[in-house]
């Protein structure tokens, strides 16, 4: 029982960090904190993929020469592992995902700057409150003018 859980320790850690990120993205009132949570969530996806790519006792997916000395890079038995390397494809996918994440983060920050300029705050509840105030003023205005027409 414990074996099964402990064997997947890194996955548990990834899930824990992922859920923390998701929770921050939902619960934080401060928009920047919300973005931080979102970034955390995206980063753990990268960790998840890198963990998926892992092959037991394998080296990095770097092409090594056939005549590589046995003690190259100070490691023992590198040469035996020439053909055992972790799967490079998920790493490459995550390069793309990181680019997407950076674009999202920078766009989000740019939006926050604009929100701060026009609302004077970056707290979600204060923004919501001032939107509600505008909406109520509009509705009251609508009720007044339609009342005039009836008269």
């Amino acid at each position, binding site marked *: 029982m414990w074996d099964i859980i402990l064997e997947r320790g890194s996955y548990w850690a990834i899930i824990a960090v992922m859920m923390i990120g*998701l929770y921050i*993205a939902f619960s934080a009132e401060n*928009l920047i904190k*919300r*973005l931080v949570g*979102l970034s955390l*969530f*995206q980063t753990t*996806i990268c960790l*998840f*993929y890198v963990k*998926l790519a892992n092959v037991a006792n394998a080296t990095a997916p770097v092409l090594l020469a056939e005549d590589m000395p046995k003690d190259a890079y100070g490691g023992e038995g590198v040469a035996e592992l020439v053909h055992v390397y972790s799967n490079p*494809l*998920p790493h490459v*996918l995550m390069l*793309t*995902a990181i680019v*997407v994440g950076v*674009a*999202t983060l920078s*766009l*989000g920050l740019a*939006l*926050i700057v*604009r*929100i701060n300029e*026009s*609302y004077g705050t970056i707290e*979600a509840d204060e*923004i*919501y409150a001032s*939107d509600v105030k*505008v909406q109520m003023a*509009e*509705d009251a205005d*609508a009720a007044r*003018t*339609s009342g005039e*027409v009836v008269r």
Partner: protein
Amino acid sequence: MILEPVLTSAPDWAVRHAAVLVVVVPMLLAPLLALSPSNRLAWILTVAGTAAAFWFSLILLAIIQEVPGSAISYALGNWEPPIGIEFRVDALNAMILVLITGMGALASFIAWPTLAAEFKGERLNLLLCAFLLCFAGLAGVAATGDAFNLFVFLEVSSLATYVLVAMGAGKDRRALPAAFSYLVMGTLGASFYVIGIGLLYAATGTLNMADIAEQMPGLSGNRSVQAGLAFILVGLGLKAAMWPLHQWLPNAYAYAPGFVSMFLSATATKVALYSLIRWLFTIFQPDRAFESAVLQWVLAPLAMAAMVICSVQAIFQTDVRRMLAYSSVAQVGYILLAISVGTAAGVSAGLLHLFTHALMKGALFMAVAGICFAYQGSTIRDFAGLGRSAPFTMAAFAIAGLSLIGVPLTAGFISKLQLGYALLDQGWWWAAVVLVFASFLSVIYIGRVLQAVFFEPPLNPRKNNKEAPLLLLIPLWILALVNIFYGIDAGFPAGLAADGAAAALGLGAAQ
């Protein structure tokens, strides 16, 4: 066949590379637009780019229709799939491509009159650049046959969409928080999708969608695959505004610039729904216990909840754009309900409704964009009495509104009828009852606006203003007439939907 002249007149290079050109042309034009010195030149290039993409997708459709049940496979960079990225276009992709490129061409057409007034003297070329990127991303989602490539295109289009929505801030600052919450929700949706892909990759070792589908029968009951399905369903459901994951949609559509909400309402959720159909039916076969339980016990109840709850919410909106946005969520519910039936008839009805909904919601949002331009307001109060001062705009609005309700002789009637047949075939009479009830609710919310438009005295201080600009009226009437035409002779879209459903379910040709 109608499309034969398109194929015979097209040059050889266009026929051979149409599958990739439909994405590449708008995507490469976008950075050029950013460098364009004048707004007008940028707009002409945008129209040219979207029209070219529309032409390429018609060529694709013509090639597909020549040999029923065929698929075009295009190996990017000549790397053979499944190692390389594959663009794979079959009847389903071709239908979606024609829909989004066609609506995109119409949207770019109306961009000039509405934007030039909204952003006087500002540089529009960057905005149009974002629009073309969004367009290219959506076309890429519809054309690609690679699961991870689909994510990249989805994010290309989504990031451009956030920018476009935020551009509404010049008129109403509420566009900024709307864009921000769309960004958070949309990114979460895409991330969930990526997690799902990762789980599937762990089980199958491939990213090519056709290749994954081939390996699926051997993986029946695999937990990793089932978890992957759950993540993909939630991720794409967020992008498709599946109830209750739709919270980003009403504000985003209500505060975006007019032509943007017209384009998004007709395409963005549709593309996500397409990928959902692709995943649920082509890759996860729905005849297995877990998958069919997902369709029946997750999708169907959520779809019906969307149809009823969001229709009721639409009734209580004072802003016409918000009302239409809530109605969009309800219509996504109709489409998901049709999908959740799980039969060829159901998927075909869903695709048909997806097609007709794009036509009618596009026309409605276009008319509203015209009214926003000419009268500077979009509340129902602003619409009062417009039947007299803007008869052409409002007549088209009324036609599209009746189509949304599903009045006979409009396109909406045909698709709702198909949906009803598909539900009754399966013995889902309770779902058919909900369908009729939700249509009745749409009579109320559309009726409220039409009553104000045609039977109330004008309240808007600018009541002397006349019609929406001509550049907007022409595409608007094209859409309105198409709505009526397909209500009388639905052969073309119904054939597309039937072929698309057959392609999704892997049945070969429909007939």
